[in-house]
């Protein structure tokens, strides 16, 4: 067999490099043959133009066939895997169980990380909201609730924060025609709504006056409760929300996406008489 000249050898070298586009298994099996055939065709070509055409054809062939070969091998592997899984049912069950546990635990971890670390808070100015906690000067690990008097001081003296609010979550009973119903509620000061910046879909939120101990009893309800129990009544503002021994005037409806606390459907003004409050250290 005649030895290829330098140009042909260079073209074969380049062609061998292009064969890297193939799966390794195909390259190992047929790479040498492909190069031999390509070299034969180059040698056979009489003019430089024809050599160029042969090279272009060869490159086009690789671009067309290499992806098909990858797909073919993947499908072949999948068929092989399915055959093995069908044959050994017990191993298949164990594999599926391990996969289910793996996927399940990954989903839980991601959901937690997404909720706590990644997803922004559902408030318009979420990057400017901070949580304030109090820690004991005696023990820095001991965290306590902020007393009402301390809250009033923060609100009066802060130069760093635009507004300050405090809140507390709990369950309440409301009385409906159909009977009593237990609902999650948040008792909050007016500053909470201004800090979060969420507008009601009907009516208004709380004012400073609503939080005075002598102020009339009022309530905000959530959109879901409004639709479920009040038939999305557009004239809900001014109607009464009844609790055992007390009647509250509904002053507004908060949108369904507003969650503060997580399960609250009713919000009541936090009223406390400073003279009867105890300060924390």
């Amino acid at each position, binding site marked *: 067999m005649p030895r290829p000249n330098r140009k042909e050898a260079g073209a074969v070298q380049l062609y061998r490099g292009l064969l890297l586009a193939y799966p390794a298994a195909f390259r190992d099996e047929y790479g040498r043959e492909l190069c031999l*055939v390509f070299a*034969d*065709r180059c040698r056979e070509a009489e003019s430089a133009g024809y050599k160029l055409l042969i090279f272009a*054809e060869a490159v086009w*062939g690789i671009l*067309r*066939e290499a992806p098909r*070969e990858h797909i073919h091998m993947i499908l072949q592997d999948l068929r092989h895997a399915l055959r093995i899984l069908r044959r050994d049912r017990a191993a298949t069950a164990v594999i599926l169980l391990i996969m289910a546990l793996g996927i399940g635990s990954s989903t839980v971890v991601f959901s937690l990380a997404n909720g706590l670390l990644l997803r922004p808070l559902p408030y318009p100015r979420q990057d400017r909201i901070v949580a304030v906690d109090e820690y004991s000067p005696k023990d820095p690990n001991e965290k306590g609730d902020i007393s009402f008097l301390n809250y009033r001081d923060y609100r009066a003296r802060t130069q760093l924060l635009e507004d300050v609010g405090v809140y507390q979550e709990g369950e309440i009973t409301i009385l409906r025609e159909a009977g009593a119903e237990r609902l999650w509620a948040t008792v909050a000061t007016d500053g909470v709504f201004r800090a979060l910046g969420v507008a009601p879909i009907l009516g208004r939120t709380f004012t400073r006056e609503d939080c005075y101990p002598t102020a009339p009893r009022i309530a905000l309800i959530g959109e879901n409760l409004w639709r479920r129990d009040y038939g999305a009544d557009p004239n809900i503002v001014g109607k009464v929300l009844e609790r055992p021994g007390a009647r509250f005037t509904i002053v507004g409806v908060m949108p369904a996406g507003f969650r503060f606390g997580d399960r609250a459907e009713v919000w009541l003004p936090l009223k406390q008489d400073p003279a009867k409050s105890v300060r924390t250290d």
Partner: protein
Amino acid sequence: MRPFLLSRDTFHILVALADCDRHGYSIMQEVGERTNGAVRLSPSTLYSAIKRLLEAGYIAELEERPDPAHDDERRRYYRLTKTGRRAAIEEARQWEKLLSDARSSGLAPKRV
């Protein structure tokens, strides 16, 4: 009429191997000569088709070399198997039938 099972290039390769065993380059040359250069297989197309034909059992790689004295020992030779021959014959029948239909419809010249 059942659809054609073989691609055009694959059928050409089986036809090239019908009368003698050949290596890859010889298959390309044979296909080119039979079709007066109308069908030009690239090395990639040829060996992808050869791989599929080997997997399907239509062709087999030869252990012995047909002409060791005048041969490059790096080359591999391929032979049409009985299964491959049956598939090629069946495919040829399909083409024959199609051509016959085309003739009777006036789309192809009558046999002389």
